[in-house]
């Protein structure tokens, strides 16, 4: 009898351990570059991300080719000349919510968080710290953030001839809706 209890307890632990993870494959990341000459905007709705609410760990994987632009030529230049997506197909982020205690995942509501970690773009990794919000909703988690990225920090070279067309600082928007990871 005792053993059964122990095993049950054990199983319970296993189950809870799994329910700590939330995931998505179709999150959104977009970016915006605004200059007096032109505005450039791109959207990616195929962002993959996992968050582990027990540890506050959070990871992102973004396929560069999935960024969609209004102008096909911009998209081609973005992939060919700037991000070199054939050589570096993915951008990743691996980080942690530093103020995890501030979030009560059992209670629906909005919580401000700070996420720190390694952002890899164009095969260059930089430590970043961004502000964001976590919204606990029934059956899921929403995560939102807006932060700035400087192309130069990621060795993305912008030639003199288009330097006036591309902003020095690119605004990145993240909007993710996570669902619990199914147990298998």
């Amino acid at each position: 009898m005792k053993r059964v209890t122990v095993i049950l307890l054990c199983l319970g632990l296993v189950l809870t351990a799994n329910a700590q993870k939330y995931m998505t494959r179709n999150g959104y990341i977009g970016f915006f570059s605004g200059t007096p000459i032109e505005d450039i905007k791109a959207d990616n709705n195929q962002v993959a991300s996992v968050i582990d609410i027990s540890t506050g760990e959070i990871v992102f994987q973004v396929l560069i080719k999935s960024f969609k632009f209004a102008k096909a030529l911009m998209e081609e230049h973005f992939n060919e000349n700037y991000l070199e997506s054939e050589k570096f197909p993915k951008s990743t982020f691996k980080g942690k919510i530093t103020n995890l205690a501030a979030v009560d995942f059992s209670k629906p509501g909005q919580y401000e968080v700070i996420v720190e970690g390694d952002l890899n773009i164009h095969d260059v990794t930089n430590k970043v710290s961004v502000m964001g919000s976590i919204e606990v909703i029934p059956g899921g988690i929403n995560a939102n953030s807006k932060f700035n990225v400087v192309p130069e920090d990621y060795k993305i070279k912008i030639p003199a001839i288009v330097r006036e067309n591309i902003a020095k600082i690119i605004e990145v928007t993240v909007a993710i809706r996570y669902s619990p990871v199914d147990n298998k």
Partner: protein
Amino acid sequence: MKHLLGTFLCLLIFTSTLAQKDLMDILDDTTTQEINYTTATFKSTRVMNGHSIEKMPPGQLDFRISHRFGTLNSGPYEFFGLDQSSIHFGLEYGILKWLMAGIGRGTYEKTYDGFCKFTILRQSSGARLIPVSVSALSSVAITSVKWSDPDRTNYFSSRLSYVQQLLIARKVNQSFSVQIAPTFVHRNNVATEFDPNDLYAIGAGGRMKLTRRISFNAEYYYTVNRGSYMSQTVYDPLSVGFDIETGGHVFQLIFTNSLAMIEKGFIGETTGSWTKGDIHFGFNISRVFTLK
């Protein structure tokens, strides 16, 4: 003892879940394989004179201005050809994802031309492996020079010629692309009865990227039944040059032995010879406008 065993078992399971996989691995595991289409096999819809497999994306208009100057061997009096200029204007538009069409007008024989280019296959990796991109080109050219003999009965159809072309290209790696283009040219009317109405040619072209924005291109068309020519000596067109890409423009600087800028002209009507120095310097400028 029993109790201990249970605890041990429990610990075992517990630790196995604790030794969680890295979160990034979870994403890697479930990453669905996607079809990864090859893009930018060539910078422009032309390799040099001839078409490349590339087409305008839907809603984009390409305004092309091409020049060919006189031959380099025409000497300093003609400023090595720069005093003479032959021009071709083109307006080319992407209609659907797989279809583009264009119209043009060239100095050479005062020719109007129109074409449609279809995408048949797209080179891809990932979930679907296709080694090459294939496009088909169909074009019509209408000359409008005055009849050489206005006294005889001249038919409008004599002004027409047609080109059917299959373009097969592979982007071998990030900087190197090659293309093979079997081509069929039909001229309704030719200079003499010795000249063939039908020409068969095979084009070969390639580009090598030198920097991210500059590439070296070369293109050669081998005319299979060129030997059957009698009325004039013609040569196979060889063109070499550079693609220079800026924001919305592609500049193509070209050295070629052909004066004509459309298939019907440079295949079978190229009278210049590289070895004799009949080399035309020229350029294509492509400016793309997004209409929708």
